[in-house]
């Protein structure tokens, strides 16, 4: 099979940028990625743009500012996993021989506050059943029942990720917090306090993919896209990210993140024990712990112990969210997955300074959300 490599990455910081448009942010990220890859306007044959709130032809608006060549541009919406979905499509097209080089980017300006989603019917909003943090709270409570996760554990996830984010100049929050501060913030939906939830925000990220036999002068060293998988859900899990109104009394339904991770590991010929660094969905603090279990970083029920061991902090055996995660960066839906990929490419190249995971060779990115959509990407150097 043809090897797909990443030759350039670019980012617009995540945060709030009044006066900067979705298009402006996308242009900045795309320009940086193309420049790093040494690719000009005619150097890629297709573009995939992840966005959920960008509106019609978001990708065209970005590339129209950079010299159009008539190439196909496809906007991809897959909720929190939009960027991962775009990456999967691009990699598949390259492997199939359809294109040699593809630009993948995501750009987003989220409305402030609780995310309003057209996914829900109006009556669900009216009945109070479209409260996204309530589903997070219910999942967190089940994690407490099944895995012994306490509020103190949830606070420690926030403390860890904000500590990591303190050295990330592209993050929205670059200030550490204490467990006391986290637990003193107001309760949004028990057991979740405000500081345990990420902020929807704005940002953009871009990646250039190419077939490795096309490479002439790999500088910086190319990173291999070893697996890129998008999965949806199986029916039956009442608290699935597909947010159904009912489910079955059945706790064996594999979640979409597990489906995606299993397929991505198979595609890469690797497993959880091969990983050196992970960026995972930490929309809320419990979601990170749930991700440890769903991605196979620990046994079912083992997430609290894995956190307590210190393994998932910088300096540990498997740092998770060295970028600071969504809890530090915020979450621009269409850009968040590619933001993780940009961080991991930089980690694998050894460019991350104070938050560098020493000697990282295998990395995994994970996003999951509405749909359900779960995206898992495995990168190697």
């Amino acid at each position, binding site marked *: 099979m043809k090897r797909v490599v990443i030759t350039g990455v670019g980012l617009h910081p995540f945060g709030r940028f009044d006066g900067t448009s979705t298009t402006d942010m996308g242009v900045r990220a795309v320009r940086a990625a193309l420049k790093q890859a040494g690719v000009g306007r005619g150097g890629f044959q297709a573009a995939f743009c992840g966005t959920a709130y960008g509106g019609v032809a978001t990708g065209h608006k970005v590339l129209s500012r950079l010299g159009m060549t008539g190439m196909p541009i496809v906007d991809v919406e897959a909720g929190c996993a939009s960027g991962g979905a775009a990456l999967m499509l691009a990699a598949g097209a390259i492997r199939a021989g359809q294109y040699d080089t593809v630009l993948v980017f995501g750009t987003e300006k989220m409305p402030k506050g609780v995310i309003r989603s057209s996914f829900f019917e109006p009556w669900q909003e*009216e*009945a*109070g059943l479209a409260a996204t943090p309530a589903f997070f709270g219910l999942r967190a*409570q089940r994690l407490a029942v099944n895995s012994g996760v306490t509020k103190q554990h949830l606070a420690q996830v926030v403390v860890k990720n904000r500590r990591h984010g303190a050295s990330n100049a592209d993050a929205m929050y670059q200030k550490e917090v204490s467990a006391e501060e986290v637990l003193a913030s107001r309760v949004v939906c*028990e057991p979740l306090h405000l500081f345990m939830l990420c902020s929807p925000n704005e940002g953009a990220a871009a990646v250039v993919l190419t077939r490795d036999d096309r490479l002439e002068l790999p500088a910086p060293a190319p990173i291999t896209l070893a697996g890129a998988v998008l999965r949806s859900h199986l029916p039956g899990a009442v608290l699935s990210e597909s947010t159904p109104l*009912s489910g079955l009394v059945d706790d064996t339904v594999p979640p979409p993140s597990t489906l995606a991770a299993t397929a991505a590991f198979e595609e890469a010929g690797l497993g959880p024990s091969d990983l050196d660094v992970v960026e995972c969905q930490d929309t809320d603090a419990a979601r990170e712990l749930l991700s440890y279990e769903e991605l196979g970083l620990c046994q079912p029920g083992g997430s609290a112990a894995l956190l307590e061991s210190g393994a998932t902090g910088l300096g540990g055996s498997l740092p998770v969210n060295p970028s600071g995660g969504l809890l530090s960066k915020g979450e621009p839906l269409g850009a968040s997955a590619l933001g993780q990929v940009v961080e991991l490419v930089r980690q694998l190249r050894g460019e991350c300074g104070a938050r560098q995971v020493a000697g990282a060779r295998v990395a995994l990115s994970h996003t999951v959300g509405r749909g359900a959509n779960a995206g898992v990407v495995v990168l190697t150097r």
Partner: protein
Amino acid sequence: MAYIDRMRVMVKEGLFTDGDPPSLLGSHCAACGARHFPRHDTCPYCAAEDPEPVELSRRGTLWAWTAVTAAPPGYAGETPYGVGVVELPEGIRVIARLTESDPAALSLACPMELRIVPLHVDGDGNDVITYAFAPALPS
């Protein structure tokens, strides 16, 4: 202008009955045995057509619960309000509002029963009602 009684209007038709006692309207798939809420015309588990309409059990046990402390977009009712998952004896878990908005007042597997509750008064002066679960009275 003549006095007119306020009407009770369902937040959405076809989800529940407003009788005494009330019920949730579900369906049962003869092909795979799954029970659904809300009612479906194709089984969401196995795609068999025309599942049988059924009324679901009015009593169950609490499987997960929380409370929403700030009004989410599109919601005009009171806050805080409870949201939870109730497990019904026929093997289905249903997401619903809870009449109890203090999570500390509830416990895992406590018995719950179906109620029809007012949500808010709409622009025409009607009471908009919906389904919810309340801690069950001893039977």
